[in-house]
């Protein structure tokens, strides 16, 4: 138990969570309205979209890939979801359609990357354009409105103070955590990302693991689309635009390494929460919203650079300790030798 606690305290996720709490507290000294439950719930509520696409992104980055098409995938799924609802398809089936659209879009990425051996950033940058173009083509460039407003009931209905969607998100996080712990195949994401050749030689199905990662990224983008449409009740053309980079930033902020093999769901969720909170805090400090990106960028840079410096110091300390050990052992052996030789 104690060991687990120590692990948690030393993790990057915890560091970011502490920073997050400090930031909220600091802002509350200026404007105490921040600490009202309503505000906090609103912040969580508005970070759901980013949390979901960041979680999907996490699987891809774990395998040392990258997916810059998740925002466009979410947009495409949102359009399909909107069409499905407008066609009078019952809600559960419409949701399934949106999820499948996302998963299919992810699978297309996977085909190019896994079987076509196209570098992930190129493939997904290409599909970013393709999905965004498809989205505009399907709608003719106009917004999808007149969606049955019953869809918004999900976002509005509350259960134990929290909107249903927040509960759903908590459920998703718990589900993913449990699955990642319990299913053997979940470890494959880490293995493939950490050492692809090693994983291959161990008999891990590298290709299907990568395929799965991109499909999951698409699936989660589909889920994000459902949340988005549920919250605002229509589908604007900008849906998901620019969110792919935000998702990568969130995941990296939360401690997932782009070199693969490091990170958890909490990284994605906490990172997304952090970025959304930054946006909200600006409002409470009465700073114009146009500075949001500057703060988000600065935070991301500071976190990754300080992470690097901590790693470097730890490494230097380890090496120093090692050098001392060697020096001592050399001394003793040389002493030993002199005593042997002298008589």
């Amino acid at each position, binding site marked *: 138990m104690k060991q687990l606690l120590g692990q948690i305290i030393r993790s990057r996720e915890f560091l970011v969570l502490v920073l997050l709490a400090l930031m909220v507290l600091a802002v509350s000294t200026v404007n105490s309205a921040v600490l009202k439950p309503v505000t906090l719930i609103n912040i969580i509520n508005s970070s759901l979209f980013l949390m979901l696409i960041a979680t999907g992104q996490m699987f891809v980055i774990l395998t040392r890939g*990258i997916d810059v098409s998740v925002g466009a995938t979410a947009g495409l799924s949102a359009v399909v979801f909107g069409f499905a609802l407008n066609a009078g398809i019952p809600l559960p089936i419409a949701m399934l359609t949106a999820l499948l659209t996302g998963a299919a879009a992810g699978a297309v990425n996977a085909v*190019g990357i896994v079987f*076509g*051996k*196209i*570098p992930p*950033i*190129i*493939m997904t*940058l*290409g*599909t*970013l*354009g*393709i999905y*965004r*173009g*498809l989205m*505009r*083509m399907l709608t*003719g*460039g106009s917004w999808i409105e007149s969606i049955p407003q019953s869809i918004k009931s999900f976002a509005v209905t509350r259960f134990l103070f929290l909107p249903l969607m927040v509960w759903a998100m908590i459920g998703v996080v718990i589900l993913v955590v449990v699955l990642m712990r319990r299913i053997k195949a979940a470890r494959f994401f880490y293995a493939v990302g950490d050492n692809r050749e090693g994983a291959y030689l161990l008999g891990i199905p590298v290709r299907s693991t990568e395929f799965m990662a991109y499909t999951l990224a698409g699936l989660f983008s589909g889920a994000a689309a459902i949340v988005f449409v549920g919250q605002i009740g229509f589908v604007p053309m900008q849906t998901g635009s620019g969110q792919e*980079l935000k998702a*990568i*930033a969130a995941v*990296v902020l939360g401690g997932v390494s*782009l*070199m693969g093999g490091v990170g958890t769901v909490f990284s994605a969720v906490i990172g997304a929460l952090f970025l959304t909170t930054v946006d909200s805090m600006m409002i409470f400090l009465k700073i*114009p919203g*146009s*500075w*949001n*990106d*500057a*703060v*988000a*960028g*600065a935070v*991301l*840079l500071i976190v*990754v*650079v300080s992470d*690097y410096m901590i790693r470097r110091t730890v490494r230097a300390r380890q090496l120093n300790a090692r050098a001392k050990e060697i020096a001592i052992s050399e001394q003793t052996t040389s002493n030993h030798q002199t005593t042997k030789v002298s008589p």
Partner: protein
Amino acid sequence: MLAVVLVVELGVLGTINPVFLNYQNLLFSTSDFVPVIIAAIGLTLVIMTGGIDISGVSVMGLSSIVLGLSFVAGAPIGFAVLIALGTGTAAGAFNGTVVARTDINPLVVTLAMLFFYSGVAAGLPTLLDVLGFKAYGAGGFEAYQYEGITGLPDSFIWLGNGMIGPVPMPLVLTILITIAASWLMLFTRFGRFLKLIGVNKDAAIYSGVPVGRTLVRVYAINGFTAAVAGLVLTAYFTSARSDLGSEALLNIITAVVLGGSSIYGGQGSVLGTFLAGLVLGYLRQGLLALGITSNIIPIIVGGLLISSVGFKILSGYLNEKRANQRAYSRERLTVNKSEG
């Protein structure tokens, strides 16, 4: 190869729509897309080293807004241009410093800076407003948000809309930058260093290449070209805006990759990027001239990006297979001879 593609493309578009194929149209339509080429040339040098800098698209907006603000703050236009170019170069150099000094993935560094620079560009005008500069004329800040900073002098607008002989200024600038960057790549030690770092960074360090300094410089060059691209766009639209270029990332990277650069570094050519940029730009113009809506164009650009890399990978695979087969049959031959 790309030159052939360009000629074929122009030929096909020209036969479908003869109006498209007159030299004046061909020259003038370049002004719409050459800023992408200018930014892509800087990125080509960065990608040579195996790095990447996606923050260029934000630097375009940043340099544009810095130019506009220093002009309304009273700087002569020439000085304002220098400040804007200096800002872009410094922004790039900062990226390079972080990339060179740490082991953080360049994509992460420049992602953070992409947000940072675009946020600063978007925020600066509001800051001036708070500080009490009446920078935006009678319309005030509201008007600025829609129009950008207008009223730039003609000598600056000339950069975007002027001509030297029959050639529009933006194209002249692009060609100059292409020549300068090609010279850097092909005829200087710096160019060799870029390639060596891209092929094998460790080997470069061990053979005494000043890796850190080279990286800082190449990212600074990228910042500079992005700033030039931003200024050309500003002059072309006759208004300074912070969100210039925010949609250009896909086009810029496509131009670099289509131009033959490998995203893994060590391979690439400035001329290739230039030609690929022309191919992409004319494709866009041609399709628009044929009445295809701009909605479909990202689909085509994206498809082109994927298929060009896919084609390269496939042809590499086939070449290797053929070489192996040839070697194998040669081996068989000598074995047969020695046995016979």
